[in-house]
């Protein structure tokens, strides 16, 4: 902690003095340092976003650049929001997001709690557990296609060894009932470590003296868990849910390689639909409108959620 006087002096180092000792003023340096990043983001993120908004009101098709482009007003939005088929990807996305978050939070928090018992070698095993989340979802997701093969796949073989079901009697990726769970399984395998890591930070942030006081008051371990551990770790758990939620709402790579939306469209999450519309059917205007709707949805949900998170934090 620096005394405020130094703070103030640093924040407003007199420009005259700075110029005096041969150099640029602080204000100039601040802008020279920040501007390149802002310019890059404007060029690669904001300009394209505005372009997308513009396209979303047209019938433009990227594979027919010579065709006349017509303004269609809000037709694209209307047809997306009233099309019953759009609910299919939305449902698939919701199934995927809700179940991955639920399973990963419960599993991740439990494992974080177990790691926090500080058994011998917990550091080493934590590092081992963390490896999957750093790997490429595309490259590893692709390999899961092999693990999920009926008969020869390791996953089916493992399930059969545990349950006794013949390994070729079920097809994780080919069956309408199982495919939505196949992508949940791979995502859970990959991202539970992420939840573990954040929950672990939450558990470690709880000072020991609170537990010591509870022990003096003879609170049972069960009661300690519900009145101390869980409430105090809650902001961290919520943060993990936020990050996982945003990431999985955008999910593309792993699902594209594992099922590419199939069988039928049972695992067609929103990004897969978007890719079909934009890069296979080349309905650029329509898919731009879809992209904007998705973006607004993530942004809106994330904002509401962050407000709730801040309320929990300040409690």
């Amino acid at each position: 902690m620096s005394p405020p006087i130094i703070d103030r002096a640093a924040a407003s180092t007199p420009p005259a003095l700075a110029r005096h000792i041969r150099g640029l003023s602080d204000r100039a340096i601040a802008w020279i340092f920040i501007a390149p990043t802002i310019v890059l983001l404007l060029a690669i993120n904001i300009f394209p976003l505005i372009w997308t908004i513009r396209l979303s009101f047209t019938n433009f098709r990227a594979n027919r650049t010579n065709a006349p482009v017509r303004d269609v007003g809000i037709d694209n939005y209307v047809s997306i929001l009233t099309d019953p088929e759009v609910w299919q990807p939305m449902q698939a996305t919701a199934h995927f997001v809700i179940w991955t978050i639920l399973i990963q939070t419960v599993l991740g928090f439990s494992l974080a709690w177990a790691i926090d018992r500080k058994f011998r070698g917990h550091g080493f095993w934590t590092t081992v557990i963390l490896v999957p989340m750093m790997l490429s979802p595309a490259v590893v997701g692709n390999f899961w296609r092999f693990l999920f093969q009926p008969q020869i796949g390791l996953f089916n073989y493992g399930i059969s060894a545990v349950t006794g079901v013949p390994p070729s009697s079920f097809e994780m990726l080919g069956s309408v009932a199982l495919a939505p769970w196949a992508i949940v399984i791979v995502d859970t395998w990959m991202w539970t470590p992420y939840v573990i890591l954040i929950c672990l930070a939450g558990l470690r942030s709880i000072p020991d003296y609170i537990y010591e006081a509870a022990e003096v008051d003879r609170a049972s371990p069960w009661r300690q868990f519900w009145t101390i551990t869980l409430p105090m770790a809650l902001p961290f758990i919520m943060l993990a849910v936020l990050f996982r939620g945003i990431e999985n709402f955008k999910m593309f790579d792993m699902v594209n390689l594992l099922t590419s939306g199939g069988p039928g469209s049972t695992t067609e999450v929103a990004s897969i639909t978007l890719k079909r519309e934009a890069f296979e059917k080349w309905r650029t205007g329509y898919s731009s409108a879809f992209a904007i709707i998705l973006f607004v949805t993530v942004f809106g949900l994330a904002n509401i959620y962050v407000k709730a998170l801040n309320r929990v934090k300040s409690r």
Partner: protein
Amino acid sequence: MSTSAHSVVEPTGRTKAIAGSLVIAYALITMLPLVWIFLTALKTPPDSISYPPKIVFTPSLEGFCNLFTTRSRQTEDYIKSLPPASGTCEQIARARNMVVAGPSNYVPRFWNSVVIAFGSTFFAVALGTMAAYGFSRFRVPLADDLLFFILSTRMMPPIAVAIPIYLMYRELGLSDTKFGMILLYTAVNVSLAVWLLKGFIDEIPREYEEAAMIDGYTRLQAFRKVVLPQAATGIAATAIFCMIFAWNEYAFAVLLTSGEAQTAPPFIPIIIGEGGQDWPAVAAGTAIFLVPIVVFTVLLRKHLLRGITFGAVRK
């Protein structure tokens, strides 16, 4: 960490044993798919698809040979007429009535991954360090809004961003170029870099720079000779995170590159042999691709938490 041996919060031996065995069991199960990738890479194609899955087998280099070469089928008479096979891969190919026709595309694709990952990391970290210093040390008007804007660029689904980028790159001639991919990944990574590095630079006391400036350094000299060395660890950790993102990225790569600038993630899933996917070759390609990330994860383990939460959780 402050737990002493006598503390009431120290878990009992039995709790530790149960927690430890749960965590170790989870770690072992979660490692199986990765172990299987490495085992499959050393199998012959028939061994890789045998039932039940083979755990004990004679290791073979066929997967690696198939990964690095293309082969063509020949008649037995033709193969007999050839001089004795010169290399290991040639011998393996001839045993399957084939001859090596040339190198495969794996090495160029891998090299593209290296160039694009290093290039985009360099620019993202350079821009990010400057912007982070600007935000950390100067009063920037609307600083919070700008920082939030920088973060929000990460919330868009990659496919939504890819639609206008695809059109823009087609106009500018940047489609399927390494430069275009470096530019795009720099833009995506710079938001992570700014947020992480602002956290690291905030932790360096301003007094260091002030002392240097009193000694006659200009602001820029103080930045270069005082702040940069102090932030070195943070910069290195940030660089590794950016590198991992660029290395693993699939959505943009598969939509915006096809040959010249294609990276390894879109290439590995389409390695096919005769009559279907050549799983040992895919596994070999995957294994080579994953090893650097596993090494980085171990190096980064102390900073992982910070990196994956955009600096929101620091511990």
